[in-house]
């Protein structure tokens, strides 16, 4: 099962390496990773998406907590959250497909960020499934290249008794 885990760490040199080294040294898997400073510039937030059975996930969380520079670990499974990734995707745009690419971009609310006589580069944010759907739809048209970020994730705020989904 896929888990998104946020890891609040000290914003210091070498901390990323400690976390990554933990995953590689213990044979845990990292699907994606994002890291940047938080509102408090002395701290950084990492979001790691990983997978494994319950016991493996338990170990991952405990091992992360054991690192001296790790302040807080949150597993988002079972929580209400918003999750976004971003993709830049360069698609072939020949005369007969140019309009089609734009239509698809429109459906997904992607933005055209670069254009040439033979290609469009589109930017899209969304959760993992949306991005994968986008890739799948564009695939027959001809993807030249793409690059994706890791996931960023945030717990939904409580409004009254239930959490609102936007």
């Amino acid at each position: 099962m896929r888990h998104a885990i946020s890891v609040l760490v000290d914003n210091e040199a070498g901390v990323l390496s400690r976390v990554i080294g933990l995953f590689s040294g213990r044979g845990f898997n990292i699907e994606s990773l994002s890291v940047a400073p938080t509102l408090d510039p002395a701290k950084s937030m990492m979001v790691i998406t990983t997978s494994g059975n319950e016991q493996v996930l338990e170990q991952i969380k405990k091992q992360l907590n054991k690192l001296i520079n790790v302040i807080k670990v949150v597993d988002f499974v079972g929580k209400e959250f918003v999750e976004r990734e971003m993709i830049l995707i360069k698609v072939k745009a020949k005369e007969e497909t140019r309009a089609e690419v734009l239509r698809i971009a429109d459906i997904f609310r992607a933005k055209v960020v670069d254009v040439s006589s033979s290609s469009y580069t589109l930017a899209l944010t969304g959760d993992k499934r949306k991005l994968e759907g986008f890739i799948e739809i564009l695939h027959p048209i001809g993807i030249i290249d793409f690059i994706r970020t890791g996931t960023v994730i945030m717990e939904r705020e409580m409004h009254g008794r239930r959490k609102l989904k936007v």
Partner: protein
Amino acid sequence: MKKISGANAFIEALRCEGVKHVFGYPGGAVLDIFDAIMDAEDIEFILSRHEQGAVHAADGYARASGKVGVCLVTSGPGATNTVTGIATAYMDSIPMVVFTGQVPTHLIGNDAFQEADIVGITRPCTKHNYLVKNISDLARVVKEAFYIARTGRSGPVLVDLPKDVMKDTIFFKYPDNVVMDSYCPTYKGHPGQIKRIVNLILKSRKPVIYAGGGVVHANASKVLVDFARSMNLPVTTTLMGLGAFPSDDPLSLGMLGMHGTYAANMAVTHTDCLVAIGSRFDDRVTGKIDEFAPKAKIIHIDIDPTSISKNVKVDLPVVGDSRMVLQGMLSQVKDAGDEVKVLLKGIKPWLKRIDAWKKEQPLRYSKGKAIKPQYVVEMIDRLTPDDTIISTEVGQNQMWTAQFYKFNEPRLFLTSGGLGTMGYGFPAAIGAQVAFPGRTVIDIAGDGSIQMNIQELATVVQYRLPVKVMILNNGYLGMVRQWQALFYNKRYSHTSLEISPDYIKLAEAYGAEGIRVTEPSEVEGAIKQALAIEGPVFVDFIVESEEDVYPMVPAGAPINNMLLV
């Protein structure tokens, strides 16, 4: 108050931590520190002959005394030479702080002379490590390093000290407290869980305690003994736990696992309630994991949450310090009253069965014409005072010591359990001897292992450390040979040590004494003679060359599947 150099501030920080002994080796990057340490008359520096020797000595010092071991070496090769020792300490949770020199900050990353990214190299084998880039961080970092090393699940911490930081100056002030919002070990076990543990034990009829090194680290031996006796619970210990429970107690089952006793392995296989305390279900203990304690409810007390349910699914976990949790359990037992009486009656058949196992298959060996290594260990046990500290190397010498030397107190047995580092024992004995100059300290070695740090002969002679090294010399890398004999059709690929030094001449060349023993009848006299010599001694016991360690559980087999002879 006036400004002092980083090097002097470093020495002051060691003083504030109460450091009395530092093991190490000088070099270019730490010249300033060595210049400062020369004036520190209250800190004794012990010069090893290889950095690995220094770091194992700091480790042995820590294991024997319970204090934080301190090691100081130079940058680059000095630092990389400590890595095996750091990994050894890390696997066995030994509190130690290793200070390494580093090239000046402006040269870091430039492939400077004697530069190594030791912080990067040791990240996976230290509890934590630091590079001090600014002198204003120095005092705080040293304070945190000692604090992290000795608290929680203890372990080695490395602090990398660039040369320019040691030359820089500062108004020195040592912080009173450690402020770390990301590190806060749990000591006190959850009271509800502690109650549940005692209730579970009370309901059991075939309970066994499985105690590990955590009991030693937490100084929990006394309360373990009280607890076990209060409920008549049999106790088996791991290699690291030897001495945590007295071997001569009727409730003692000895060591469990690959070379454990028959009684311990059978008891764990048949128990209905396994109480693991400060132990981590290592593969050398569990054998085939699916068949380890298959009938038992498993209780696990450990200070490290990552140890719990790592290898074995635990029914009742408690995170906490062994001593504090055991104290909590003991007071629950005192409140339980009649239920304890019911248990004491109910487990009688179980204790009888255990006694039968003990009698059926005791640890034993056959006598022969040549000296039996087990006999040497037994004789050392018989002839040494109760507070003797024994270190071992790794392999057959280690297992025979674990089996045939009866440890009745904690911190008397120093061995590399987790990493299995050959060459550990001799320098570890040096560290223990420095901590306890008046006590007998013995390294029980093999002829393979002793050659891995034999240069430390110079150290024992220089500092007049009367370490006795008992070499069980069988001409082989015995444990590997044993595996080759049992599982590789006796194809002894490169395990025969065809050329070895004359250990007597070697000892003498360094200024120590040497005794060679070739006949069983000479063993006792030789040990007595060695113990009577004031200085360091090498005793070279020419033992049976193809003696094996039994019982033995083949790797990956369930632990009740023992080869007995």
